[in-house]
Every structure is written in C-alpha cells, then in structure tokens.
C-alpha cells in the first residue's frame, strides 16, 4: 500500500513509549517519514499523536521517568535517535520544532531567530545577519519585520509570532521540522498563511505535522497517518486516506462518525 516514490528520511520501528508512571502512550508504531514531504498525524485527542511527534526531538527526555522502546532511525546515516548513546541535544540540532502556541522568547525578533545559531557556535556577525534574514524570508516574515528587528517579539501578532517561531526553527537548517498543531491558537487568516508557508517549506525540508483539523491534513499533507489509542491505525497517501481508506476506523473518524 505504501507508495515509494520518495526516499525515506526517517522511520519509526516498533516504537513504544511509556510516560513516567507506566502509562503506555504508544504501542508498536511503525511509520516511514518521506523526505521533503509533509506527513500529517491525525486522530482524536489523547491518541498519542503529540507524544509520537515529541519522540522525534527527544522532548520527553526533559521530564524524568519517561521511557522509549524501539527505534526511530534517521537516514541516510542510519542513526537510531532514541539510542541511549545519542545525546538528545544532537537530535535537536538535526530536528527542529514548532509548537502549538506561538512561543517566542521575550527577546528581540532578531535574537529569537539567531538563538539557534548562537547555540551552534555561530559568532560571525555577517553570517548571522544573513542566516537570520534567510530564515525570516523563508518564514514569509522578512518584509513585515525588517525595519524592527530589535523590537521585542511580543509586539507581533499571533500569526506573526508563529511565523517567527517557524523562522527560529528554520534558521538552523534542520533535516526534519516538527509541527505540533501549529495553527490551533490562530485565526483563519493566520492559519491560511501558515499552511501556505508549510507547503513552500517542503521543497527544502521534511515535515511532520500533528493536526486535529482533518481539512488541514487534507489540504497540506502528502501522507497521512491516523492514530487511535496509541496505535497507528492506518498510513497512506493523503488522497487515498481521505477518499478510500482501507480501514473502517479511519473512515469513521474522517467522515465524522466518531471523534
């Protein structure tokens, strides 16, 4: 069933995840992430889609007691990013993330985008300026902020803040970008601009996006995975998922009979 026209950038292999306290939030998930495509994760609240996404940048490592089992393998280097010997910071250097609620730092617009570069040891002012500009252009924000790069990021509107967060995630030239319900806190116009931006970004970067909005998944993604109660129920080409899914549960969810 799996269309193989694009190389695989990363894949989850038999991934289980336990929250501190033993709750098993992911149950044997196998999922390929195709390079320079958008893969959408859909499913009802609590199905584990955000948990799954946050495995990709080892965000769960920030909190004690969480446990992974299985693998997430990055290609072409075949690194299992969940392996004990792999530092979560190394993973986060390769895979960046955009959060549900716009979360710029209480710093200037420039510093927000530059921070990832500073963490990577960039000290050359001119290189930094160039990369910040590129990232802001990539996030379709440059024209709106180029004259006020030193203003505090909170002065931007919600949609602009989210694009700033995308610029911050983009500036470090990641291999994969994770989006955790990136438009759920935004109005429809800001949502449309973020969606358009994501469609442009996939020329450069592999994208994995969690959304609870099925229309959004249908609009922007190339592949869709439906999750329920910690399991991956079905994964396929987005067009196929939304027109003739092979599993009954997927169809029920997509047609709104359930969820």
């Amino acid at each position, binding site marked *: 069933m799996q269309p193989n026209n694009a190389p695989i950038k990363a894949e989850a292999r038999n991934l289980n995840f336990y929250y501190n306290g033993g709750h098993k939030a992911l149950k044997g998930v196998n999922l390929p992430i195709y390079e320079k495509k958008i893969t959408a994760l859909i499913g009802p609240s609590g199905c584990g889609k955000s948990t799954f996404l946050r495995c990709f940048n080892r*965000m769960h490592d*920030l909190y004690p007691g969480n446990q992974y089992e299985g693998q997430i393998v990055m290609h072409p280097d075949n690194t299992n990013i969940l392996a004990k010997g792999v530092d979560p*910071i190394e993973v*986060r250097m390769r895979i960046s993330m955009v*959060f549900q609620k716009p979360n710029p*730092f209480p710093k200037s617009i420039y510093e927000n985008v530059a921070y990832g570069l500073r*963490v*990577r040891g960039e000290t050359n002012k001119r290189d930094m300026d160039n990369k910040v500009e590129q990232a802001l252009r990539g996030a379709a924000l440059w024209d709106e902020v180029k004259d006020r790069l030193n203003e505090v990021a909170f002065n931007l509107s919600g949609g602009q803040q989210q694009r700033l*967060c995308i610029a911050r995630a983009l500036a470090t030239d990641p291999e994969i970008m994770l989006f955790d319900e990136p438009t759920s806190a935004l109005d429809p116009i800001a949502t449309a601009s973020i969606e358009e931006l994501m469609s442009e970004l996939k020329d450069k970067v592999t994208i994995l996006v969690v959304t609870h909005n099925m229309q959004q998944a249908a609009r922007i993604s190339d592949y869709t995975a439906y999750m329920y109660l910690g399991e991956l129920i079905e994964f396929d080409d987005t067009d196929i998922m939304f027109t003739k899914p092979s599993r009954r549960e997927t169809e029920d969810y997509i047609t709104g009979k359930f969820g």
Partner: protein
Amino acid sequence: MSEQQASTLKDLDAVRAMIRRHKLNDYIFAIVGLLALMVGLLTLLTLFIDLVMDGYTRFNAGFFTEFPSRRAAHAGLLSAWVGSLLVMLVTAVTAVPLGVAAGVYLEEYAPKNWFSDIIEINVTNLAGVPSIIYGLLALGLFVYILDLGQSILTAGLTLALLILPVVIVATRESIRAIPVHIREAAYAVGATKWQVVSDHILHYSFGGILTGIIIGMARALGETAPVITIGALTFIAFLPPSPIGAEPPYLNFEWLSAGFTVLPIQMFNWLSRPDHAFHVNAAATGVVIIVVTLLMNGTAIWLRYRIRKNIKW
C-alpha cells in the same frame, strides 16, 4: 397569558430579594476584611508616628555625621550606619550568589527524588528558624572555630545565612513562573541546560530574584539578635578602615575584620540607658531603620513592575 406574566414578575421579585440577601454577605465581608487590614496598617502607622514625635528633634545632619557620645544631644549614628552598610555589603556578596545558585540548582538540575525533597523541605523550614539560633551558630562556627573574630565579616556572613532561604525561595518561585513552553522552545533549538539557564531562565526571572534579594536585605538590616550574639560592639567611636584607598592597590580588606556596630544595636543601646535624652536618639534611629526598610521594599516593588512590564507570556 397575563397570569403567566404575573407569575414571572413575582418570581423576579423573589430572585431580586434573594440576590440582595446574598449580596449582604459581600458587604459584611468587605467590612471585616477592611478592619483586619486596618489593624495591621494602623498599628504600624501609630508606632511610626509615635517614633517620629519622640525623635524628630534629632533629625539633623549632625545625627548622621557624629559618633556616639556620652552626651545625648551630640550622639550620632555615624558608626552605626557605616557599620550597617558594610555588613549589608558582605551579606549581599555572600547571599546572592549562593542563594541564586542553590535556587537554580534545585529548580533546573536537581533530580526529583526523596533526597531533593528533603532538601526542599529544609530550605523552607530554614526561613522559620529564629534568628538568634543563627547568632549562636555563627558564634560557634565563625567566631570560635573559624576564628573570624567579632567582626564585620562574621556579622555579614551570619546575616547572609539568615536571608539565604529567602533568596533561594524567591529564586525558585520566579523560575517556576516561567512557562513550560518557553523552556521547551529553548531546549528544542538544541540548547544545553546551562545555555537555557544562562540565556533564558536567569534573564526572565531576574525581576523576581532581585525582589527577593532586596526584601531579604531589608530583613537583615533590621536584625538585632544574631548580631548581638556574635558580639557587636554597642559603643564605638571610630570607623572601620576605609575599603577604598587613595593609593594602589586602592582596595583594602582590613575593614572586614574590624569591630562594628549596626543601626538596630545602636538603637537598642540607647534605649537601655536610664537617661531619657537617649530615648529620643533611639526613636530617631527607629525612624531611620523603618524609612530605609520601606524604601528598600518600595524599590523592590518598583523594579518588579518595571521588569515584568516587558515580559508577557
């Protein structure tokens, strides 16, 4: 139809009566609350006014530039306020780095287990330990075992211990006020723990930490018991050696081991004399301590307001 209207109206009257009855409780509580507030405020105000009435005759430049004297009218606060200033300096230099580091460690680095739980409970409890206990500890540890003498250094370290819990708790609380999503944003770009702490956590919690430090310092300024315990002098007519010299190396640290007195001790000394003229001096000193404390707390509030204004989560 009209019958129905009538019954609706009747119900409405009942509802309004009920709301009035319930609202009566609002008024009653507002008055009780105001009274409770006034008990505290008016007591302090009365005390303050009383002190001002008793001591106002001494409010002149000489009071701050003269040493204590046998003649009440010539006795001044010079050695006391200089002593307080130097002791506060030692306290700040010691308590701020220790307290902030401990607070950051407990919030960001310490593993969450029974050991850190015990430390946490103890830190909170330390804030409630009577200050004279710190005085006894300091007498044993700093004066006898470490042989630091009955000096400014000893007093500063003692008061630093005393306010350490205040600084630690303030640091932790202002760190905790930083939302999780800001912290996660910093980690998500690949920052290490230390980068998150130094580039973000400390910046965003600065206002709260500073407030805690100032409030702790204000408390230390008024502390008497531990300073008496370690043996502050009650009558000194000399100043410690100046910390700043005119010739290289410009800084000298002899003052650290000098004998000293502080404002509350000077006040206590004057108060315990039989001659009523000295009680006027004591009252005036009390006013000085209260005013400085209020100014410090006011500064803390103003700083917090100023710094928080630029940070909206």
